[in-house]
């Protein structure tokens, strides 16, 4: 094990260490944890992880450790903690419902980083991420030339330079093609000229690295992307992937070391503005009950809750229904935390909870707005007895939206 005498607080802010201390161990968060819902193992729950991490801090920085020899931490305990902190989907529901208000959505990536820094993480799918991104620009190690070509509609024109840019994101571009295709079709309907980076230049936003605790490449990735958009004269960067939007808004300024030179907008915000400005209209009817799932990093992460709903309600005939847990309290579909492939069974079980509730509520379609959710919930429906059409919000809108000619 590397750096065994290093403090366990070196990756945390004073407020995050206070948050660890503030946990009253009441255990109320367990009833909001999707991992608990499908595993029922309190030993990997938030209060237990916090309790164990406090022990780690004490063992290296506590009074006894300071004045006598730091205690050797049991390797098995470290490994168990590492597994527990990676089994979490980092959805942040526990923090949202926390009796004292601990920001767990931001805490977990930094606890994961500590475990990475100590060489305790051996999930190949995660440890291979930096190399994959270095070689191909995406975490899936797929060729850059396949990033846009398979789904980009021929009729849509992208300009060389514009104040508006669209970032597709790796997960959307490679694994949720109907979603990103829907994005550009809707952007085309809006009619504002928009630019994009080339398939070689549009590299990973850094989210999988950030969330898995591997932060070494983040500064370089951020600077590369920001300067590329700056060269194109971008003032507004639009993206539909909640994870990308989250890291762009919250972490890019940290890794850039200053405020971003452009504004980040979620696709639904941009569409809603276009609807309000009468740039687009929806005249065809859709007489269906739609249920919308809030992605954790969009709702709890950056507060985009109303816009997707307003966009769906703009389709005449739509009856929008809600999951029991929605908005800030939404339940993770299982795709979060960059570990949906490591803890596949958990993720599938969580995805099925969303499917079952949507079917029980007699929804005609389950509307998603995240490529990771899109992939995992579709996967969860395979071999599942209950079925429902799963559609991305822009995939749906692209079928109904029309440009208002002026």
């Amino acid at each position, binding site marked *: 094990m590397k750096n065994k005498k290093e403090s366990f*607080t070196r990756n945390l*802010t004073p407020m995050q260490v206070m948050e660890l201390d503030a946990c009253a*161990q009441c255990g*109320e968060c367990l009833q909001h944890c999707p991992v608990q819902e499908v595993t029922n193992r309190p030993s990997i729950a938030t209060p237990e992880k916090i309790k164990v991490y406090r022990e780690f801090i004490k063992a290296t920085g506590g009074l006894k450790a300071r004045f006598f020899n730091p205690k050797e931490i049991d390797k098995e305990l470290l490994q168990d903690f590492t597994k527990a902190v990676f089994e979490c989907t980092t959805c942040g529901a526990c923090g949202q*419902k926390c009796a004292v208000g601990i920001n767990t959505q931001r805490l977990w990536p930094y606890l994961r980083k500590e475990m990475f820094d100590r060489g305790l993480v051996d999930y190949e799918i995660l440890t291979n991420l930096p190399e994959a991104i270095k070689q191909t620009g995406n975490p899936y190690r797929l060729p850059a030339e396949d990033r846009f070509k398979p789904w980009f509609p021929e009729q849509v024109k992208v300009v060389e330079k514009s104040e508006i840019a669209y970032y597709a994101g790796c997960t959307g571009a490679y694994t949720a093609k109907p979603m990103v295709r829907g994005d550009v079709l809707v952007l085309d309907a809006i009619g504002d000229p928009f630019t994009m980076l080339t398939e070689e230049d549009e590299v990973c936003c850094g989210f999988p690295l950030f969330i898995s605790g591997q932060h070494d490449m983040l500064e370089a990735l951020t600077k590369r992307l920001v300067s590329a958009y700056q060269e194109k004269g971008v003032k507004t960067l639009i993206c539909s992937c909640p994870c990308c*939007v989250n890291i762009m808004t919250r972490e890019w300024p940290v890794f850039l070391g200053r405020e971003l030179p452009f504004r980040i907008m979620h696709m639904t915000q941009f569409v809603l503005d276009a609807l309000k400005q009468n740039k687009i209209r929806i005249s065809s009817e859709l007489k269906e009950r739609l249920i919308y799932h809030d992605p954790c990093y969009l709702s709890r992460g950056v507060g985009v809750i109303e816009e997707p709903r307003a966009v769906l309600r703009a389709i005449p005939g739509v009856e929008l229904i809600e999951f029991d847990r929605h908005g800030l309290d939404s339940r993770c579909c299982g795709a979060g935390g960059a570990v949906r492939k490591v803890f596949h069974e958990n993720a599938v079980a969580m995805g099925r909870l969303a499917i079952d509730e949507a079917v029980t509520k007699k929804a005609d379609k389950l509307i998603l707005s995240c490529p990771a959710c899109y992939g995992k919930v579709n996967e969860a429906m395979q071999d599942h007895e209950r079925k429902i059409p799963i559609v991305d919000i822009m995939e749906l809108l692209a079928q109904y939206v029309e440009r208002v000619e002026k």
Partner: protein
Amino acid sequence: MSLIFFFAAVFSYLFFLIRFAWQGIIWFRATGHAAAYPVFLRKVPATVYIITVLDILLFRRIFDTSKLLWAGSWVFHISFFFVALRHMRYFFPSLPDCLILLQPVGVAAGYLLPLSLLFLMVLRALQKKDRYASSYNYIISGMLFLISSSGVIMRTFFRPDLISVKQFTLGIFALSPQALPDSSLFLIHIALFLLLLPYLPTHIIAAPFVNLEANRRMEELRYVIHEE
């Protein structure tokens, strides 16, 4: 015996102070990269502070999660607060008027304190097996229950000589050992308290700050990606 209790008390208070001070040092020695976290809310509105004060006084976040837990926790904390205030009479040579006025409230709180603890422990025990149970919380609650129950028994049935109790406690802070009051219940009461003091959870200090930060964050969420 008096000397043993005197030194135990000095050690317990010192340990408590050093532990809490050291915890503060641990908090502020954290030097994570996340310190550069961008601020989207340039000025924290006064409402955030008001909400935080109300949260601390009324335990709104627990209320949102579990009404039963809220009832038990709120009664426990509020009665603990008034019992602690009532005990100030043992630490001041002459008691300020405001504390004199609060003495009857402290007496009522003294009866509520063990009841609320009992309620919380029973609530925990009755909850489903798959719920999280913290052994530390059980130990702290159990000790507090014994301390508060012995206090109630002394107040109601076997009153110790209050003058000698006051002389003993004032002697601790004056570093001048005094004779122990002649009461076995008092000895149990104070022994348990001295045992508990060094292990009081530090969340009593951290939680209000974290609560303030959570309220600031919630207010900030409106401006993270939305223009004002």
